[in-house]
């Protein structure tokens, strides 16, 4: 197998970080040391909460559209908005002139 072919193959095969054989190895072995230091560097504990956006539109989106927060509530909000807008408009232009 030529060098180039091996290079191409190595992009397909994931790097060997740990294997069953390695786990049984001497804990002081170089490969195991690298493995432990790699995992030690990773952040621990629960994931930090995502920053709340300042933009009111993005905040609304985060609260009612994103991920598991997705719900039909925006439709209710929209209906209420239309109701208030429509009635105000109708009242000002029309209904208040009826006696």
């Amino acid at each position, binding site marked *: 197998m030529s060098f180039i072919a091996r290079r191409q193959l190595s992009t397909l095969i994931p790097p060997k970080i740990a294997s069953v054989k390695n786990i049984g190895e001497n804990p002081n072995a170089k490969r195991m040391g690298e493995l432990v230091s790699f995992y030690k560097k990773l952040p621990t504990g629960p994931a930090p909460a995502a920053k709340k956006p300042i933009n009111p539109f993005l905040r609304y*989106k985060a609260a009612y*559209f*994103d*991920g*598991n927060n*997705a*719900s*039909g509530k925006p439709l209710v909000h*929209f*209906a209420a908005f*239309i*109701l208030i*807008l*429509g*009635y105000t*408009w*109708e*009242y000002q*232009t*029309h*209904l*208040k002139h*009826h*006696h």
Partner: protein
Amino acid sequence: MKKMFMHSPLEQFEMKMLLMMNDMLALSMTNYVVYLGMVSFMMYNMMTLLNKTNLEWNRWGLAMLAMYDTMLNMVKSQMGNKGGYYFPLMFTLFTFMLMANLVSMMPYSFAMSAQLVPVVSLSLSLWLGVTMLGLAKHKLVYFSLFVPNGTPLPLVPVLVLMETLSNSSRAMSLGLRLSANVLSGHLLMLMLGSLMFNLMNSSMFGMFFGMMPMLGVVAMVMLEFAMSMMQAYVFCMLFSGYMKDSMYLH
């Protein structure tokens, strides 16, 4: 109580001014323009609902995908794989009609699709576009669309006349169908609602008797919700059919 209700069923379709320009309705800011802006804003922001925040689609994303898939299936079944070129147009038309129709179902809102002038203008320009597409694609052969296959020669002049009439009437009928359906639905809902209110307001007996039209109103509202979705679909389905005629002739 008098100030809560409209006094004529046709009042709901009136254009109301916000800003008047040169004493003309054409360039003024009316409730039609406001609702048009609202629907356009929602359509523009719809794409943000399709972002994947988790590994799977959320409920909004799935709703959008369902709409997308419905339209894609319809376009492919009508126009085949080549119809994909026109899918963005169809999807935009469908979402616009659907949102405009559904927004008009909210109380005190404005029925954009019931306005004959803009809807028929839209259908007219769509028909014109489809005709131009056919002429650009097939040149003079496009006119073979007006002669059905296997017509005996003596019948050709009559059939050409009839086919030309039927083809050009599509420009009107497409918009008229949507507009008339929405208009009649809204009128009926309001008239039934007023009947129910007047009956229940009249006496104790009328209060109980008014329950019957109330069931009718509920049924009508449900029917109108279904109708507003169906009409958007039917508009796009018929338009794809017309487009198919222009693309493949027979």
